[in-house]
């Protein structure tokens, strides 16, 4: 039995008998949401369901006219591909509550299936409208097969079986270029091995070949729109409601005659089919498939998208997908990454620290600390400030250069500082009140130091670090995601 926190009790201080406390106190909790984040969240909850859909469609429709750069368009296309993937995963994780860690393998399977059906590999040049249904059906079937062994045991096993499957898939595609079948001695090249398959046919719909990035962008936009619409309908349908019941309590659902196992497998197949379709789209746009497209970092990226937006929330996961795609793209360039890093910290502080006096004190304190340190250490040990900030340009660049210590050879110092930073952040979670605020200033400075001296040099590692940390922090602090609504938990 969970204890009822003070702010969730009735007006008299006593829990009201006969009403669920959580439901009874909903107005009070809503009123208790103050400040910037609270107001935004209130607004968000009042947005009608069709608005995000309309926003995505409208923005997407004009997006190709806003830019003439193929690079920007490709990022937009990637964002939509990820949005589709996140929508599919949302069915499995968000609705049915199954941890499917082999999701990327279905994405890869769809891509490879399309590549095999529509390329010179086996000289099968199926038309797109014939290939896609085959790919979707095959992916769904594979999903069903993989879900089967987990039928008799708890959901945790599903996680590991699917994770193992994802691993096997990459090994298989990397090595399936010299399979010797039992009936002959001639090795078969199925997947092209590490070189993958290239020279895929473009999507060809209604007699028009999709060659430009913008064509694929529009195809993806249509699919995302259909996906969101379909999910709205699905989520309130009989099946959707049954999925949520299974997620909340499989045992109770079973007692209510819901066919739990069949629904789990169905969710699994739905997710796999979506991933397979998306894989085909991805492969056709890339004009090729390679095993390294489907390795595990992709898995954590998609999970971070779904968790960030809030599993179960349709606009949430789409926004999560777009945000994370753009953020990861920005992290590629050191100058942009720096602006993003400090902006994210500033935003986090502005939302997390109230009243404004404390925030101001903290910012002034941190700045002063950095400037004083820079002068002192620079006087004792000139090498510590010698390098100058990497690509120190613009306002942020010059400010950072005066503020953060930048020793000439940052490697080892950066590593030590990184470990210290992790310890400091962990320690910070144990502190409360003023002490936390006092300890926050040096931690922030340390974070900036580590960023400038270590992380900025290895963007690919930094991306994974951030995604991993994001999952842990979100799950601990706000498991329903940034945009998800609080679920009623009665214990």
């Amino acid at each position, binding site marked *: 039995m*969970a204890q009822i926190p003070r702010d969730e009790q009735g007006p008299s201080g006593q829990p009201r008998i006969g009403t669920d406390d959580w439901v009874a106190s909903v107005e009070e909790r809503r009123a208790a949401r103050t400040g910037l984040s609270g107001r935004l969240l209130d607004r968000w909850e009042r947005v009608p369901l069709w608005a995000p859909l309309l926003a995505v469609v409208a923005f997407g429709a004009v997006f190709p006219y806003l830019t003439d750069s193929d690079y920007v368009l490709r990022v937009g296309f990637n964002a939509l591909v990820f949005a589709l993937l996140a929508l599919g995963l949302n069915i499995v*994780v968000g609705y049915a*509550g199954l*941890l499917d*860690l082999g999701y990327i393998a279905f994405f890869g399977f769809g891509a490879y299936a399309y590549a095999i059906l529509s390329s010179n590999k086996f000289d099968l040049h199926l038309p797109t409208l014939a290939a896609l249904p085959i790919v979707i059906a095959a992916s769904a079937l594979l999903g069903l097969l993989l879900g*089967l*062994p*987990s039928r*008799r*045991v708890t*959901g*945790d*096993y599903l*996680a*590991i*079986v699917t*994770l*193992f*499957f994802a*691993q*096997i898939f990459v*090994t*298989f595609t990397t*090595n399936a270029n010299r399979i010797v079948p039992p009936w002959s001695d001639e090795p078969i090249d199925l997947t092209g091995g590490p070189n993958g398959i290239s020279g895929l046919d473009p999507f060809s719909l209604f007699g028009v070949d999709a060659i430009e990035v913008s064509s694929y962008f529009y195809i993806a936009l249509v699919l995302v729109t259909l996906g969101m619409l379909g999910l709205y309908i699905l989520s309130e349908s009989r099946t959707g409601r049954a999925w949520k019941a299974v997620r909340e309590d499989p*045992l109770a659902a079973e007692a209510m005659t819901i066919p739990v196992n069949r629904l789990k497998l169905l969710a699994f197949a739905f997710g796999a089919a979506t991933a397979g379709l998306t894989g085909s789209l991805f492969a056709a746009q890339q004009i090729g498939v390679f095993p390294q497209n489907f390795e*595990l*970092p992709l898995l*954590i990226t998609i*999970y971070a998208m779904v*968790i960030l937006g809030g599993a179960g929330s349709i606009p949430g996961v789409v926004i999560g997908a777009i945000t994370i795609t753009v953020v990861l793209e920005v992290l590629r360039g050191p100058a942009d990454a720096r602006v993003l890093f400090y902006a994210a910290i500033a935003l986090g502080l502005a939302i997390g620290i109230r009243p404004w006096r404390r925030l101001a004190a903290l910012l002034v304190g941190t700045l002063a600390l950095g400037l004083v340190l820079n002068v002192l250490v620079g006087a004792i040990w000139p090498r510590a400030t010698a390098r100058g900030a990497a690509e120190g340009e613009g306002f942020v660049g010059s400010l950072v250069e005066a503020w953060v210590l930048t020793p000439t050879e940052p490697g080892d110092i950066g*590593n030590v500082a*990184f*470990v210290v930073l*992790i310890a400091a952040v*962990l320690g910070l*979670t144990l502190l409360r009140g003023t002490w936390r605020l006092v300890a926050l200033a040096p931690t922030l400075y340390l974070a900036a130091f580590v960023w400038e001296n*270590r*992380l900025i040099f*290895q963007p690919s*590692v930094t991306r*994974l*670090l951030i*995604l*991993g*940390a*994001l*999952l*842990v922090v979100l*799950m*601990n602090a706000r*498991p329903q995601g940034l945009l998800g609504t609080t679920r009623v938990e009665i*214990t």
Partner: protein
Amino acid sequence: MDGTFLLQQLVNGLTLGSVYALIALGYSLVYGILKLLNFAHGEVYMIGAFIGYFVLIGLGGPDALAVPVVVALTLMFLAAMLGAGLLGVLIERFAYRRLRNAPRIAPLITALGVSFFLQSTALLLFGARFRSYSTFEFLGGAVTVGGVRISATRILVVAAAFSLMVVLTLLVGRTTLGKAMRATAYDREAAAMMGIDVDRVIVATFLIGSALAGAAGVMFGLVFFSVFHLMGFAAGLKGFTAAVVGGIGSIPGAMLGGLLIGLAEAFSAAYISSTFQDLIVFLILIAVMLFRPTGLLGKADIRKV
């Protein structure tokens, strides 16, 4: 395919199996008590291997050890076990503790996040290159049994693994802490009502399980010469498979499962194909889940509502 070759594969399988068994024990202990699949366990094993490596380098490196070999080995094992154990405790304290009563999926996703975080931390700190213990330099001896040459490191690894398993069995079966662990695994709430400090038991479980993983990491480094940031992932999967095959939650089951998976992998690498040995292990996992979901030595999980 003569007898010597077969025997050689048996030795290979036993060595690999001991490593997997130690990893499986950590999985099994934690799962037994928290019903949590600790995906980060493989990464703890990887960090253990790195700690062993750096202790070895700190003692002068494999070709110029400043201390006797026995002392070096002891220090490597102790440091790795202590470091890995502490890491496990930290992970429990900061990542899992708040989620103890959350929906089942929340700690699983957290574990995934911790796993990737540790992996990329190792990549950042240690780089992507393979490192080798180069044990030839200081542990070059070998014994010949029935025409098979068995290196001293392999004997050492198997012996060390088995003694750790014996110690663990005694710890869980004979001590007060072990009794508290079994009680907590059986029913956490009831155990708390009987005055058992459940938090302490859980911390102890993570400490012990992670220390075993750390030891396994050093053993792997001693025999297979490749320590790198991604080594924990595959080993974690195999360790988990071993725990499931033996029956998750059961200590003798984890040992049996580990040895079976190790042997299966060695023999499939030798007689079928080394690229598809993972596939064979995966098929074993599927088969066990289809035909004996509780594992070879596991007890049926009867739920009362």
